[in-house]
């Protein structure tokens, strides 16, 4: 049967892995090429490189990183960050990416997704969608994204916001530019739209959870996994192996793939450990090569 994928993700700025990487056995821990090669050898199911550079020089460096990584690995490579035009997609595919993730560029110009999907095939276009949970009663997509407290956490105003009996489900807004801007787009509707336009996969990141090590936002992951006919990659918040399990499990996030960064980068866990853990809990995964 088809296995759920485990995808280590490297954030790259100016040619270096950001936040640092602390593997044993790597001479230069900030080198994305060395890190990607190690993940490939460990049996990562796919590798993701995201460019978080803001400058033109950095962008050029990133394409070079993609080229070097692609030359070293024998698994699928997904890349993204700053993709605004067809020429950006072409440049990354030409450098050896198998799939290109488009985030803000898709919101600003939805026709871009249609154009590149028609030209290069849906299978290589990933819609990266960043979402933020709106507090109940203030769920008005369109207003600037409020600093939504994570569910279950106390807010300055009083108790944690809980969906009341009158609320069917929490509402999520799509945010862009690394969470700096709200868009007024409701998350599920946007995912459906971007799939209709031609995205072959959704990379769904919860901005509330990203970097918190508290686990994926399972509600929105499950909702979107069930709503769209294409695979969904869960992202944002993994701090331990149990979070990978939750994101993939039926009744949990139900995602097709689980993306994580720090638990792998910091040597907390290896890919084979993650696979063994998931297999032991009944998640279908491909065993890592010995």
């Amino acid at each position: 049967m088809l296995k759920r994928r485990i995808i280590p993700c490297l954030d790259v700025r100016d040619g270096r892995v950001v936040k640092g990487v602390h593997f044993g056995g790597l001479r230069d821990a900030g080198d994305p090429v060395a890190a990607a090669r190690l993940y490939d050898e460990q049996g990562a199911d796919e590798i993701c490189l995201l460019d978080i550079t803001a400058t033109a020089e950095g962008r050029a460096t990133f394409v070079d990183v993609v080229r070097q990584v692609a030359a070293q690995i024998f698994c699928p490579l997904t890349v993204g960050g700053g993709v605004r035009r067809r020429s950006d997609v072409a440049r990354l595919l030409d450098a050896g990416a198998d799939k290109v993730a488009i985030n803000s560029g898709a919101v600003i110009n939805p026709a871009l997704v249609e154009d590149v999907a028609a030209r290069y095939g849906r299978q290589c276009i990933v819609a990266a969608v960043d979402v933020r949970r709106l507090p109940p009663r203030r769920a008005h997509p369109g207003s600037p994204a409020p600093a939504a407290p994570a569910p279950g956490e106390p807010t300055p105003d009083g108790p944690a916001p809980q969906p009341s009996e009158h609320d069917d489900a929490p509402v999520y807004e799509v945010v862009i530019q690394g969470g700096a801007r709200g868009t007024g787009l409701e998350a599920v509707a946007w995912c459906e739209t971007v799939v209709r336009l031609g995205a072959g996969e959704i990379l769904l990141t919860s901005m509330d959870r990203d970097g918190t090590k508290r686990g994926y936002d399972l509600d929105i992951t499950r909702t979107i996994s069930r709503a769209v006919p294409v695979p969904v990659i869960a992202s944002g918040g993994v701090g331990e192996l149990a979070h990978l399990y939750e994101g993939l499990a039926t009744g949990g996030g139900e995602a097709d793939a689980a993306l994580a960064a720090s638990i792998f980068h910091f040597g907390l866990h290896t890919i084979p450990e993650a696979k063994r853990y998931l297999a032991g809990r009944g998640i279908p995964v491909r065993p890592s090569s010995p």
Partner: protein
Amino acid sequence: MPRQVVLLDAGLGNLGSVERALAQVGAAVLRTSDPEVVAAARTLVVPGQGAFGDHTDEIVAGPLGDAIRAAIARRVPFLGICLGMQLLFEGSDEAGGRRGLGILPGRARRFPEGMTEPPPPGYDGPSRPLKIPHVGWNDVSPEGEHYYFVHSYYVEAAEADHVRWTCTYGDVTFPAAVVHENIVGCQFHPEKSQRAGLRFLRAFLLGGWK
């Protein structure tokens, strides 16, 4: 002397990773879109991503199609990858119905909508829907290894003898690898399948698939 492999560059997707994987297992790769070079190949590999459409029509009906048929008729080792394998068959339901090279009997069909995965034991919630395309690592039978697949269409082979490995997605069991005389085809991407994929390519180059 490394074995020379002609890699067909017909705009059917990125060739870089196929070229690199073949080199990794000892091939000297010659990329070409020249029908004469293709027809004269001593080993021919036709990779492919994406879809049947106007572009495959041109190949099938044009000089490149003739060149592929000529190479195969000369009994040189041939490998078709993904779309390159599907092209060997009579046609595809894709894009309103398209013709293939018609070298092997059978046709590419789309995975049906609405397939679901049985819920795990003890879970009484709704079944999890299966997505199209079939993307990711799946195991093949009887060999048992996992390979990386990306496709929305699968081949329905008319001759069971041609099917060497099968793979199952939802309700559909389809050929993962086909073999007939000098022809090998794989639905998965060996160039993206880490060690298992490289072993597969090495076996092809060494003639282990005849």
